[in-house]
């Protein structure tokens, strides 16, 4: 899976969780602007586990990894 494909998959998942059109999201959009709370964030982590088989809840990911969809995609790419 390429980085762009990971970004695209993430945007699809996030837009479903946030119940918004995927065209509203871009890879450079800061995570805190997605309008999600702790629970929405956990839903994204569950989506990542189911899609990429990566359990991020217990990982050492930092705020920096979640700056944008792109940085998260890069973290996932490194872990795959």
């Amino acid at each position, binding site marked *: 899976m390429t980085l762009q494909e990971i970004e695209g998959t993430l945007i699809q998942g996030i837009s479903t969780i946030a*119940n918004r059109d995927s065209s509203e999201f871009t890879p450079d959009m800061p995570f*805190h602007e997605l309008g999600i709370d702790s*629970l929405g964030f956990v*839903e994204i982590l569950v989506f990542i586990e189911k899609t990429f088989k990566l359990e991020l809840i217990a990982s050492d990911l930092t705020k920096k*990894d979640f700056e944008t969809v792109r940085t998260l995609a890069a973290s996932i790419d490194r872990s795959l």
Partner: protein
Amino acid sequence: MLVSSRKCYLSGSDWVINSLDHLMKMTTCSGNMSQIVLMLDSPLDGKNLSSTVNSFAKNFPVLQGRVARDFKLTPYWKIPAACDRDVTLNVSQHTETSTLETFLPLLEQSANSRFADEREHLSFHLFNSSRRSALAMTFDHRLLDARGAELFLNLFQQTLQGKGSFEKTTFTSSMELTRWGEKFLAGRNVNRRIISLSRSIPRSFSLQPGIDKSFKYRLLNFTSDETSAILDRACSESGYLMESPFFLAVITQAIHELFSARSDDGSSYLIPVTTDLRSGQDILNELFFNHVSFLFYQIPVDRCQDMKELISQFKLQMYENVKSGFPRDLAKASLLTRIVPLQTLGRIIRIPMSGKIATFAFSHLGKSLYDSPSFMGGNIDNLFHMPRVPVPPGIGFFTNIYNKRLNLVISYLDKLLSEDEITLLEEGILKRFGVTTDRNRFSQN
């Protein structure tokens, strides 16, 4: 889908909220209500407020509805053709009242005042002093959940400014009398979870006999600098966007300290946490009725000492709850309860865990959906919620952020805890938030 403009079918969550309302009327002085409080920097004109509120509210006959059952026994909200009475507004003038500390006893009274009858679900209480005012919008949880109430107030303010449009407000109403297999499957999952939770009896505060009990409140309000420091601490100790597990861990440790001085044979803390099932545009349109479900956290008493481990427990359980789809299963399964009369459902809810339903309730509303800095021309100093908590447990913690400032409200049944215990609880929370404990807890910016 709105089946009829006069008939809105209740969801399973609505029916559970209705049964909690019934239980609370049986055990306390009033029902399952809450209020949003706006602290304003100037007094408001009561007459102007009353006429403006009534002219807005007449667009929503749903505000004067009541619960009924149709021929298929499905409960619904019977909506009148039009609003035929005014929204109650109590106005009082208080010469010596200017700080939140002096307003709080008045706000406690309004939070505990009963609605006039089964058709009243919204009222306002305005407390004016010469320099400030406090406005409480008291609402029936059967009609509005906390976010819905904030949006209602927001829509009111937007309409005043010529920006709001209540035509977009929808009711997603359906009898939901199909796909029974899905509901029973969800019911099986919920049942398994409840059996698993009931293997350990939770610690809980003993309820005193008598029914004429009111709720008391403590408000911890933080400045924007304190809020920023607390959220930074939550981020470093709990992780990015993980303030809820941090708040839960802080409160649980403070509660654990209290129980250390009490004798209770419970072996865990059981905490139901409200979660909103709406997202995105749904939240803006679905103002009325309940769109919530619950996550359940169970923390063994012997796992409460270490904050890091406690946070990790909450994060893991939050993850497991979401991964297993528990909140949505609970919402689906509760549709099956609608056939049961409220009195019976109230008894059924109390069967597991010897009636000790929970240790405390918690809800983090996050950033307030009321997004204006003012209300009817007055600047808002603060906005917070004062809910009455279902009994049992009779105690709850509610957080929200308004204008970059965090509020934490402790709501508790009178005499459930002593005043010394509540103060200890408060200090325990402040200490763990890293906020100095000698500050004036009611202070305004």
